[in-house]
Structure formats: structure tokens, C-alpha cells
């Protein structure tokens, strides 16, 4: 009887836990092949990664207008583009937010912000919100560094831009720069995955 009871208890436990396990978020892991996209830029033109024939890779950054962390990183994103575009790794910024929920993240506001800050890179709108879930972006800013290998775009680094959002002069680890420098040298980035606090992408 006792064994029956414990078997019953164990099975109840198994059944209970089976349904309470939180699903692991989908999206890319380092080494996966990234999908291309065709999204509208603030200049009204459609942009795809396949437009860049000579690129060695891309710094894809999911970012937006309203998030204080995105704002804190705007100048550093411009610097990344200026520094690495000529080396074959341009920045492509994508706003993944639903502007109906996320005030200030509509297309017109994006155009305004890009002009004000003098963005040197495309700032695309993920209309329909189909791209960010494929990448597995969860917050802004969220970087996906892609590297071209055998004509495929492989995810080489996922995470934060550096390790100090509040003070660019106090940064001690420039994750994205270090990762690109490693790729240029033909090495694997390390770390290839970092975490940071960011604004939840508004669906």
C-alpha cells in the first residue's frame, strides 16, 4: 500500500511539473544561421542584409526611441557604425516595438530621432513584429553580431554593447568591439553571450 502511495505521489509530481515547466525562449544561439529581412528604413527605402554585397557581417541591434538604456547607448551605437562599417561590419538598428503599446516608438518618431541624432546606419521598423522573435531579442538594446561564413550569416555574439550603461568612460569590457576584433583576426569571440537590463520588447 505504501509503495502504491509513493508511486502515486511521484506520478502526481511528474505530471504537475511537466505542465509547469516554463518554455525556453525561442531564438538564435551563437552558431545559428540568421535570417535576412526586408524592413522599411527611416528614409522610406526597404533594407535587407543581402543589399550589402561586400559586408563581412553585421551588427544587428534591436533598439528603440523610448527606452532609457537605448538612449544611453545611442552615441556608442553611432561610434560602432563609424568604426566598423569600413571594416566590413556595419550597424543595422531595428525597432521591434509595437508603437500602439510603446509610446514614442512609431515610424515618424523614429525618423525624427534618426535625424536629430544623425544616425549613420539604417534604423528599420519591424512592422508586424516578425523579425525580433526569430532572432530571440527580448529587450532593447539587444545586439546580435553576425559573421559571414560560406555565404551564410552566422550568429557570432549575442548580448550587450559593453559593461557600463550609465558611463561610457567607465566601461572596462567592450563586448561588441572585442567580438568584432576577434572575428577580424579569425578568432571566436569570447565572451560570445552577455546579459544586460533592458526594456522589454512591447508586443
Amino acid at each position, binding site marked *: 500500500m505504501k509503495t502504491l502511495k509513493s508511486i502515486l505521489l511521484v506520478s502526481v509530481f511528474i505530471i504537475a511539473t511537466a505542465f509547469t515547466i*516554463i518554455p525556453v525562449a525561442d531564438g538564435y544561439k551563437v552558431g545559428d544561421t540568421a535570417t535576412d529581412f526586408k524592413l522599411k528604413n527611416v528614409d522610406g527605402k526597404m533594407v535587407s542584409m543581402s543589399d550589402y554585397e561586400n559586408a563581412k557581417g553585421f551588427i544587428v541591434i534591436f533598439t528603440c526611441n523610448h*527606452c532609457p538604456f537605448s538612449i544611453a547607448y545611442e552615441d556608442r551605437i553611432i561610434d560602432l557604425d563609424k568604426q566598423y562599417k569600413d571594416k566590413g561590419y556595419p550597424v543595422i538598428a531595428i525597432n521591434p516595438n509595437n508603437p500602439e503599446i510603446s509610446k514614442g516608438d512609431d515610424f515618424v518618431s523614429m525618423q525624427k530621432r534618426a535625424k536629430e541624432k544623425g544616425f549613420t546606419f539604417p534604423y528599420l521598423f519591424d512592422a508586424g513584429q516578425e523579425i525580433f522573435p526569430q532572432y530571440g531579442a527580448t529587450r532593447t538594446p539587444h545586439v546580435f553580431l553576425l559573421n559571414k561564413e560560406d555565404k551564410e550569416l552566422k550568429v557570432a555574439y549575442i548580448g*550587450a554593447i559593453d559593461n557600463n550603461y*550609465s558611463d561610457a568612460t567607465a566601461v572596462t569590457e567592450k563586448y561588441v568591439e572585442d567580438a568584432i576584433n576577434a572575428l577580424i583576426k579569425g578568432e571566436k569571440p569570447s565572451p560570445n553571450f552577455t*546579459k*544586460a537590463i*533592458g526594456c*522589454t*520588447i512591447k508586443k
Partner: protein
Amino acid sequence: MKKILFTLLIVSFISCKSDKTSEEKSNEISIKSYTYETLEPLLSKDDDKTYVINFWATWCKPCVEELPAFEKINASYKDKNVEVILVSLDFPNQIETRLIPFIKEHNLKSNVILMADVDQNKWIPKISEKWSGAIPATLIYNKNSRKFYEQSFSYDLLEKELKEIFKTY
């Protein structure tokens, strides 16, 4: 008669004074800043309480929307060995300009502290391996059980989860 008047005067003086003190108190909110080293002990207590730790910021809209649920838990469960701690991830240079005015405006009663550790990649995984870094995020724990949520809560859902963790105690 004189005596009565005098007593009344004293009483009114005292009550006035005490009112003023409590008002002054509410105007003097001070926010304690934490690094991971100093925050960690708050996330691993093994006393008789169940802790509800909410990571939020004044600029985070879904966080602000769910704050009333945490405030209500704090009010209804504080006598039942539950402690709510609101860990703000506001920028450290905005404590005076944003965080304290927000606390006053929304009359927050739960304990609010500031997580000012900028090296987020070091501490986010230590709070939970599952946490991507997006907020709102919540940790509910006691000495027997621990659960982390990267999601928004309604009061009913939060209470349900709290009761689940309670059961383990």
C-alpha cells in the same frame, strides 16, 4: 477653567507637532543603493519569511502597471510573514529627480531599494540563469523554495504564485 484651556493647548500643540513629524518623515525618503555583493544577502535569507522581490524601474511601463499588485500583496500579507522588496533599476543619477518623486506620487509603501551595480552581465545570471535581463522580473522565495519569473503579474496571478511558494514553507 484655566487648567482645562492649558491642557487643551498642550494637547493641540503635541498633536500638531506629531503631525508635522510624520509629514517630514514622508518627505525624507532615502533610497539605499546596492551592488550585487550587498544585494545578495537579501535574496538568500533563511528566516521564516517569504520574500517577493520585484525588479522594476520608473521608466518601465509594464513594471509601473504591475506595481499596484505588489503593493496590495505587501499590504495584505505583511502580517503573514511576507516581505515585498521593490528593487529599482533606475539610473543612479536619477534617484532624486525621478525615483523619489515617483515613490511620493504613487505613495509606495513597500520597501524600495536601488540596484546600482552597472556590471549587469556579472549579476543577472546569479539572480537567475533564466533571466534575459528584461524587466519586469520577479523572484519569490523562502528558505525551502525559490521561483523566478520574467513576466508581468496581475494581483491574482501573483497571489497564486505566492501561495504556491507558501505551501513549501
